[in-house]
Structure formats: C-alpha cells, structure tokens
C-alpha cells in the first residue's frame, strides 16, 4: 500500500492534461460537432478529475496502511539560495490533513464536473469552461499538497486566478443598466483578494525571518523549540534585529488571518464573494462554496501550532487566535443577517457561504481544528448541493421563461418586460411540483445547512458550538463566550433565511408565468444532486461524537478526529512542552462527547427558525412578485444590513477617495509634476540645451577645423600655382638659378676668402 505514495504527483498531472486537452483542442471538437464535441470536452475533463480522485483514494489507503504517518514526496529543489541557507523544495506533503482536503476537492469537484456538462450545454465557450475548471483543480491541489508556505502560495494565487476567470466567464454580459457587471465582479474578487494575498506574502517573509524556513514541519518544530527553551527574543535571520517571540507569532498569525479573510471572504474583505455569483453556477458551487473559499480555513488549520503557541504565549490575554474566532463569529452573524434581505437565490447562498465560513474560521480560532475541518467537509457537500440545486432552479426558470416567450404567438417580439430575472426568488414559488428531484435534494441541503438532525450540518455545527460552550475552554479565554452567543444567533439566522428561501422558491403558488412553465433539469444535473444529497446525509459518520464517552456507532465514531490526530501538531503540544516547561499548558479541547444542552439548544434554534420562516412569516406572503418582504417591518434589518454596509463603505468612502487619489496621481503628480515639470522642463530642456551646445561645437569646432584645413590648403595652392607658368623657359630658368645657387653654396668659402 505504501508504494502508492510514489504516484502522488499524478494528482497534479491529470488535471493539467485536462487543461491542455480542453485548452488546445477542445474548442475544435466542440466547433466541429456540437453534440459529440461537448461530450468529448466535458467527459475528458471529468475523467481527469475522477482519475485524480482515484489517486487520492489510493493515497488515503496508503496513509491508513502507514498508520496515518505523513509522507513527503519531493518533486524537485525549487529555490535554493546557499548564502541564506534557504532551500525551498517543491514537495508534496501527503498527510491526513492534505488528503482530507484533496478528497473533498477531487470528490466534490468530479461531481460538479458531471453536473457542469449538463448545465453548460449549448454555451459557445463550453471547452473554455472546462479548461478553467481543470486548471482550478490543478492549483487547488497544489495549494493543499505543498509542504511549505510558498508552494501553498502558488496554489493560493492560482485558484485566485481561476476564480477571476470563472467569475468573469460571461464577461461580455451586461447588467440591466448597461454596466459590465460580470467583468466588474471578477475584478472586485481579484482586488479584494489582493489585500489578503499581500498579507500572505508578508506573513511568509516574516515566517522565514523568524524561523529560517518556510517548510511547515520545520517552522512548527522550530516554534515549539523556541517556546520550550524559553527563548523570548528571536533574531531575524540574516539581520541583527531582535523581536519578541510572542510579537513575531502574533504578527505572523494576524497576517495569515488577513490572508484568510481575503480568500475565505471574512469581514471586512468578504464583499467579493456575493458578487462572484456572476459566474456559472457550478463554478460558484465548486469554487465559491465548496473548495477555494475554504483555503483560508486550511491555512489556519495547517498553521495550528503557530496559533496555539500564540494563544499560549499571551497567557490568557487577548491573542491572535481569539481575534480569529471573533472575526469568524462576527462574519457568521453579519452575513447571516444580510442573507435575510437578499432576493437573488444565489446571493442568499453566497451570504450563507460567508456565514458558514465564519463558523469554520471561528472554530479554527477557538482551537477546534477538527470541528473546523468537519464543518468544512460537510459544508462542501451541502453547499455544493444547494448551489447546484439553485443552478437547476435557474435552469428550469430560464426554460420556463423561454417557453412563455415562444408560447403565446410564436414570436419573440411579444416580450413583456416585467423585469423578470431567473435568479430572483420573488418570481419563483411552487417549484416543488415542477422540479421534484431538485426540491427533495434541495430540502436535504437546506436541512443540513440549517443544522437540523440527523443531517451532516447539525453535527459539524454542534461540534463548533459545543467547543465554544465547553467550560474548560471558557477558562482559557472569555472571548469564547461571546463567540458562542454570536454563533448561536448566526445558527438561528441560517435556519430562518433557509426557511425563507425554501418557502419562496419551492412552496406556495408560482408568482410568475415562468415558474409555472419550469421543468425538471436533465438527468446529468439531477444525478449529481442525488449523490450530494446522500453525502450530505451520511456525512455524519465522518466525525460522529460519542455519548458519555462511549461510541455511538462502533467503529464510526470520531473518525475524523483519529484520522487528523497525526497531522495536527496541536494535539502533541501538551505532551511535548509540559515535561520541558514543567507547567500546565492550556490547549482548548473539543468535547468528544455530545453535550445535550448545546445540541438541544442548537436543534431548537434551527427547527424554530425554520418553522418560523416557513409557517409563520412566509406562510402567505409574498403573494405576488411585487409584494414587500415581511421582514422589512423589522427595524434596522433592511435599512442597515439590506444596504450592505461594508460594500457601501467601500463604494462611498474608499473607492471615491481612491479614485480621487488616483486622479490626483495621474493629473497632478504624473502629468503636471512628472511629465510637465520633470520631463518637459528639466530633462528635456537640459537635453535640448546640451544638444545645442554639442551642435555648436560640431558646426564651429569640428567643421571649422576640417573646412579650415581645406581652405588653407587651397589658399596655399593658389599661391604656389602661379609659379607653374607652363612655359618651358621658366622651368629652364629655375634650373639655372638652382645651379647658380648650388654653385654659390659650394663656392661660398672660396668667395669669402
């Protein structure tokens, strides 16, 4: 079994083959013959994703055979700087944590590939879509497989690129008011992620400065060593600068948190994720719900040792880990409240994703790394399911609308412009009967997301709440109490807005002709929904808690906890540090047994919220597409959260300020100062003056010398040529005179005597 570690690079090779196939020849296949071309293009990409999935499963088996012992597969030495003692290998770390992520990525990824073949049918850029999807898998697998922060960063940027490409997939589509909303959404995602990515780079550099390495194992080992030897001050590598270890750890962990807020859409960088819904729905499902946005959680879970040491070194005062928990909890509640006010079916899910990511971040910040990963996996299942269900609904609505446009008199000109939007929930309703498979799978996803037992979401959310509630954890940090109440409120919001969505989309009567004519989607789309619905139900068994420290289901309890135990350094901190330091180390523990107080309360909140939404608030209304939403009566909710305060903050304050600064830079600095003053006045004028000087020197100096030489010769020649008379006698006379002169010369002594 362990020889399977050697085939690990295949998980990267398969997707890149898919990229090459679809990127180079896929389009020709599709253009040549739409029907078979789409089959080739789509199924080839899917086959590559499935191949990667098979390899990951083999790696999984290999890890089980080697008792969860991590294996590093070195591909090549990537960056080697001997003078800095810096060596960054391109190596794949195959441990239980990375393989867990890979299973989610390739597993959910494969299902979404299959679904996409149905969803993207007929799109003119069919093969381009699958190129991006495979490219995304490639980078996402790099992200989770790297054994150091730099390889992780390569994947991090790569998935950001794919996200940009897929959000802007229909970049030429215009919004209602003529703006390029898809292209703008893609740019927004890119720019918001820049902020986080800049922090990520700074964090990596600081990690290298402090620990002299950026390989995960070495960094964590070094960090534990520093703490164990009471080294409170560290010298930055290659410098004489000394900083306190706790400060360094806080800085690194906060920078990584900022990186995570960018990629995982947390406050205050979350604004890009709801807009990212402009992309094709399966892409939203894979990238902006199930996998890419969880990179931030993966980063924090991967760096768990740094976060726990930072908590330990702060000795009970507010640490960066507490900040992580607070950011996550605040995001969970904030996004949950915004989801109340959204009418776009995908936007509700997008804010729900932001909210659920907040749960995971909060869990990671509280030290519940297993719970964070558990929620990450179950969320990947049910949120992918919900998004694909929403995609199916939109697909059905579009077809319904198409049908009524052609149904009346067979002409397209009969176009009643009632502001119809296939994604607007106000135009839906009653789809339960039109799209039964979609409805039932969506219902499973909704119940899982809302946290209603026995679906997967209940167990993972409960584990997070139980961790926050556990009394011995509260002793470590009082922040956990605040986080607990915020998360509980967020859990209620989740149930309520999902109930609202369920009610508006599937229940009641159709509110638009398009909803009346909607159809169930093709099998290619509904089968993946069923698969994910099953996963969202049986996902429980990934990490079922114990009851009073006895196994609920023999052999299937706390699977994930045992599985990840080897990969998470935090579980070994106590045993490693306590004997050396000789003092108790408080590491937060997630209760392994179910706490019926918490479980009961969370179930009560979820069921209550759901019932309240479905049977009370949205029982009758909205009766018509133009009706007001009943929650608009609640003070502040729509007027504050409905207006997206953070988006408004950016668009009203930051962006105008930035634009003004950019204008100032371009007009005043660049044009007036740099162009007019520096270039025109100083550089150009100096140059012209100097050129004039050279010109003068050339014309009068060099030319004068050469011409002067010529005219002097001419003048001399003019003088001499008169002697050349051409008369023979003149020459004869000169010969005589010469002879006489010679005679005089020779006879001079005799003459003088």
């Amino acid at each position, binding site marked *: 079994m362990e020889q399977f570690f050697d085939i690990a690079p295949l998980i990267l090779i398969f997707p890149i083959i898919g990229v090459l196939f679809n990127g180079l020849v896929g389009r020709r296949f599709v253009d040549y013959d739409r029907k078979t071309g789409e089959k080739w293009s789509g199924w080839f990409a899917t086959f590559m994703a499935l191949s990667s999935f098979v390899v990951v499963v083999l790696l999984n088996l290999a890890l089980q055979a080697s008792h969860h012992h991590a294996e590093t597969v070195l591909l090549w030495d990537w960056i080697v700087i001997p003078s800095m003692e810096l060596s960054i290998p391109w190596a794949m770390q195959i441990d239980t944590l990375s393989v867990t992520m890979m299973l989610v990525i390739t597993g959910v990824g494969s299902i979404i590939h299959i679904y996409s073949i149905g969803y993207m049918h007929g799109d003119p850029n069919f093969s381009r879509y699958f190129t991006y999807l495979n490219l995304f898998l490639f980078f996402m697998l790099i992200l989770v497989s790297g054994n150091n922060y730099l390889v992780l960063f390569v994947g991090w940027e790569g998935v950001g690129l794919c996200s940009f490409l897929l959000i802007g997939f229909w970049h030429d589509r215009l919004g209602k008011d003529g703006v390029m909303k898809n292209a703008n959404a893609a740019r927004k995602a890119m720019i918001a992620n820049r902020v986080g990515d800049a922090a990520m780079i700074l964090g990596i550099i600081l990690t290298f400065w402090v620990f002299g390495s950026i390989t995960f194992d070495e960094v964590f080992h070094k960090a534990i060593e520093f703490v164990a030897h009471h080294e409170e001050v560290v010298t930055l590598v290659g410098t004489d600068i000394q900083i306190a270890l706790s400060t360094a750890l806080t800085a690194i962990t906060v920078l990584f948190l900022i990186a995570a807020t960018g990629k995982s859409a947390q406050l205050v960088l979350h604004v890009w994720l709801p807009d990212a819904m402009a992309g094709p729905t399966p892409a939203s499902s894979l990238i902006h719900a199930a996998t890419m946005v969880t990179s931030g959680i993966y980063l924090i879970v991967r760096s768990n040792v740094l976060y726990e040491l930072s908590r330990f070194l702060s000795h009970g005062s507010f640490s960066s880990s507490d900040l992580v928990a607070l950011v996550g909890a605040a995001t969970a509640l904030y996004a949950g409240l915004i989801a109340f006010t959204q009418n776009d079916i995908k936007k509700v899910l997008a804010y729900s994703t932001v909210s659920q990511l907040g749960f995971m971040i909060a869990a990671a910040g509280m030290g519940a790394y297993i719970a964070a990963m558990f929620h990450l996996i179950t969320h990947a299942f049910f949120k992918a399911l919900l998004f694909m269900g929403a995609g199916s609904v939109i697909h059905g609505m579009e077809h319904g609308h198409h049908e009524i446009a052609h149904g009346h008199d067979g002409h397209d000109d009969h176009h009643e412009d009632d502001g119809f939007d296939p994604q607007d929930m106000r135009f839906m309703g009653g789809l339960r009967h039109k799209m039964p498979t979609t409805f039932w799978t969506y219902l499973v996803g909704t119940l899982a997301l809302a946290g209603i037992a026995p679906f997967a979401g209940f167990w993972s959310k409960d584990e997070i709440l139980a961790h926050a509630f556990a009394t011995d954890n509260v002793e470590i940090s009082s922040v956990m109490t605040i986080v607990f109440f915020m998360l509980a409120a967020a859990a209620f919001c989740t149930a309520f807005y999902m109930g609202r969505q369920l009610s508006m989309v599937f229940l009641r009567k159709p509110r638009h002709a398009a909803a009346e004519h909607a159809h169930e989607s093709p099998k290619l789309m509904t089968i993946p929904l069923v698969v994910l619905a099953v996963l969202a139900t049986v996902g429980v068994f990934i990490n079922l808690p114990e009851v009073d420290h006895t196994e609920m289901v023999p052999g299937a309890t706390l699977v994930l906890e045992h599985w990840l135990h080897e990969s998470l350094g935090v579980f070994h901190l106590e045993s490693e540090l306590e004997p050396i330091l000789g003092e108790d180390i408080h590491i937060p523990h997630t209760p392994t047994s179910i706490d019926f107080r918490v479980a009961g309360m969370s179930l009560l909140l979820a069921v209550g919220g759901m019932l309240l939404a479905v049977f009370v608030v949205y029982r009758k209304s909205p009766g018509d597409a133009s009706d007001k939403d009943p929650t608009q009566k609640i003070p502040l909710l729509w007027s504050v959260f409905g207006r997206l305060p953070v988006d408004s903050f950016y668009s009203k304050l930051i962006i105008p300020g930035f634009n003004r600064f950019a204008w100032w830079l371009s007009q005043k600095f660049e044009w007036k100062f740099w162009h007019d003053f520096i270039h025109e006045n100083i550089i150009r004028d100096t140059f012209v003056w100097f050129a004039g000087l050279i010109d003068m020197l050339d014309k009068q100096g060099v030319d004068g010398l050469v011409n002067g030489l010529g005219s002097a010769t001419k003048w001399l020649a003019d003088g001499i040529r008169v*002697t050349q008379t051409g*008369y*023979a006698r003149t020459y004869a006379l000169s010969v005589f005179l010469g002879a006489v002169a010679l005679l005089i010369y020779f006879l001079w002594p005799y003459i003088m005597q």
Partner: protein
Amino acid sequence: MTVTVEWYIALSVILFTIGAVGVLVRRNAIIIFMCIEMMLNSANLLFVAFARQLGDIDGQVLVFFVIVVAAAEVAVGLALIVTIFRTKRSINIDEINLMKG
C-alpha cells in the same frame, strides 16, 4: 701670344652664357635646341682644355660620352619637335603651355 687655358675657359664661359641666354629668351624650339647643343659643347671644350692642361685622358673620354648622349638627345628632341609641329602647326614654345597651373 700663347693660348693658355684661361682663354679656353673664357671661350667656354662665353659659349655657355650665349647658350643659356638663348634657351631662356628664344621662342623657336629649334633655336633653343641649338642653344642647348652650344652649352653642351662649351662643356666639352672645357673638358678637352683641362685634359690637355692636366695631361689626363679622362676628360677627353668624357667628351665622347657627352657627344653620344647629345646625339641621342637630338634624335629624341627633334622627333618631339616634329610631333608638336604636326599637332600645333607651330614650334613656338610660348604656345606650348599645357603645364600651366
């Protein structure tokens, strides 16, 4: 009155002077040519005179050389004059000034 060597020298000088002045002032190419011959012969006279005075045969030998060279020169020179006359229809050397600078 004995004829001493001075007489010969005087005659030679007179002949040479007449020849030189003739070369410089006359225009007819043939006359100039004859003046050149006269200068050559004044030199010959001097050679012979000194050879007799000094009792040395070398001077007389040289005279033969001069005569031979003069003969050759006459042959070439007359040919030149004939050619010039043919082209210019004149042997006035004032008209032959192609070398004027």
